[in-house]
């Protein structure tokens, strides 16, 4: 049987030592398969961000194993992790994290530079990715010239450009109003459904998590809930934006 895309086996992550020891994750088992759209929820300090960092190969478990397609990433070197991020993962952050004074297109090209693509090919791929998130014609704009929603789209385009297996979205709508949030979440749903990209999204808002097809809730470093959900929003009718998230949940 094909191994799951991501598998946590009894993963603990402990910060500090002795008295100051903080158990951010405490023996977590989790399996995420290809094509899932998982929302990870929990109050701050529950371990959801740590989980995200470990999935994103930015952090390593203190004990236990995190397997990416059956490979334990805990044993990989820093450079190997960088390559893994480069070829399989795409990040979308709450604060967008675009390079300032750098055009949308250049931002999207950034991961492709590290992939070693020639300039012409990069430009083509970046334009395509921007088109996929509905930003045709904005290639030359600086982040400062774009709205929050547009900036987040650029960030998604940047994640997409690298052709990732997984997109990791850390509070992707935390800085956006509900209308823009809906647009972004619908876009993520669309990518998940139409292109089969696995999406793992961290949020602390239930109405945001409701866009996913699976909900994992963390409390004090442990998983306290893990269930399939029926996604709301534009999952069935992606483009119309009929229901805002707030209405959908209430």
């Amino acid at each position, binding site marked *: 049987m094909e191994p799951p895309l991501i598998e946590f086996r009894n993963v603990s992550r402990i910060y500090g030592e002795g008295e100051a020891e903080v158990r951010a994750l405490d023996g977590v088992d989790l399996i995420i398969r290809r094509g899932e759209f998982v929302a990870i929820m929990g109050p701050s300090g529950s371990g959801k961000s740590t989980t995200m960092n470990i999935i994103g190969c930015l952090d390593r478990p203190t004990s236990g194993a995190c397997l990416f397609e059956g490979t334990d990433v805990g044993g990989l070197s820093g450079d190997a992790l960088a390559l893994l991020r480069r*070829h399989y993962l795409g990040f979308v952050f709450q604060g967008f*994290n*675009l390079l300032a004074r750098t055009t949308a297109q250049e931002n999207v090209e950034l991961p492709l530079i*590290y992939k070693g693509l020639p300039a012409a090919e990069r430009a083509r791929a970046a334009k395509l990715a921007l088109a996929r998130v509905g930003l045709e014609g904005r290639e030359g704009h600086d982040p400062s010239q774009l709205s929050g929603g547009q900036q987040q789209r650029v960030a998604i385009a940047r994640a997409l450009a690298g052709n990732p297996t997984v997109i990791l979205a850390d509070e992707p709508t935390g800085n956006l109003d509900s209308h823009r949030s809906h647009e972004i979440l619908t876009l993520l749903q669309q990518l998940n459904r139409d292109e089969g990209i696995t999406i793992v999204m961290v949020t602390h808002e239930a109405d945001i998590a409701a866009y996913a097809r699976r909900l994992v809730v963390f409390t004090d470093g442990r998983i306290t809930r893990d269930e399939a959900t029926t996604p709301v929003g534009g999952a069935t009718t992606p483009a119309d934006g009929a229901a805002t998230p707030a209405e959908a949940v209430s």
Partner: protein
Amino acid sequence: MILEAVRLALRSILRNKLRSFLTILGVVIGVGAVIAMVTVGQGSSQQVSQSVSGLGSDMLVLRPGQRGFGPQTSGGNRRFNLRDADALSELREARLVAPVTSSSVTAVYGNTNASTQVTGSNEAFLEVAGWTLADGRNMTAAEARGGAAYCILGDTVRQKLFGGGDAIGEQIRVKQISCQVIGLLQAKGASSFGNDQDDLIIMPIRLVQRRLNGDGDVNSIQIALASGVTTTEGIAAVQDLMRDRRRIGLGQEDNFNVSDMREVADMLNSVNSVLSGMLSSVAAVSLLVGGIGIMNIMLVSVTERTREIGIRLAIGATSGQVLTQFLVEAVVLSLLGGVVGIGVGLALAWGAGIFMAIPFAPDPLVVLMAFGFSAVVGVVFGYFPARRAARLDPIEALRHQ
């Protein structure tokens, strides 16, 4: 990847022009100073060898006293006289002999006056000392011997006394004697030591001896060797003759010395190179300071761009690539400083060359070395900040505000 990194570095340098300029200023000044020093130094040593070869390497100078600056034995400073010069000109090895005596004077023409140096010599002096006439004529042998009241003016004296006016044929007063200007010298400019070579009047030696100095002494004798005679042979011949004439017994030290121009040139050049070496090392210190400036700004830049580094690491840059990026940026900055510095240094040397009347002698090797050195400065001082950037924890970096 490197090409990409250079492009990236250039972009980030251009993004903050003022700061980049201030950053490279240290390197610009350092490289500029080194280049200027070395180029001026080489120009002046080139000038020395030019003026020496103008005199001919077959030139000997005979002076009284022992060589060096040590204590002189008794009678060591006995002067020469014109009979010595005559005897020297009998030598097969000597082509031209110019006895020289000098005196400090004030020259007067109308109501202008100039204090200057009179050089008393004979008709051979102009050729031996490498002067050419701009106008008029040289003195004749008979005029030199007879002490005719004629004079030849250096360019500085001519300008002081006559300005733009015609000097040939005019009578000027030199101390108490009146003499007629028969020739004007072509300007030579400043010597390697910066003194004005054109500030002189040349007169027949007998006139200077009798009327100005009131003696029959000759300070030094300049000798141009006949063709085919080596300096060693020439020096030996002059020494033999002078020991004989001065009745120096076997085993006794010479009470005169003979030097050739090559020696003089060597001395000038060694003084030159010591000076420019010293100045260059001072300039090199400023290059070091420039490097520290680059390190400082790169450290600031790493802190400022922590978030950017976090983003790059998250989207798949290896720490090696981040290291390369910052290292390349430091090197590009430093090279930029080097290039600007080379330009500034060459311009300074060129300007100084005009001002000090020495040739402009840029050395491609030195330019290349300065370029290489600024690259080294970039690598050395860029490495530490770059390593700091590469070692950032991506999670921390992304959280950085």
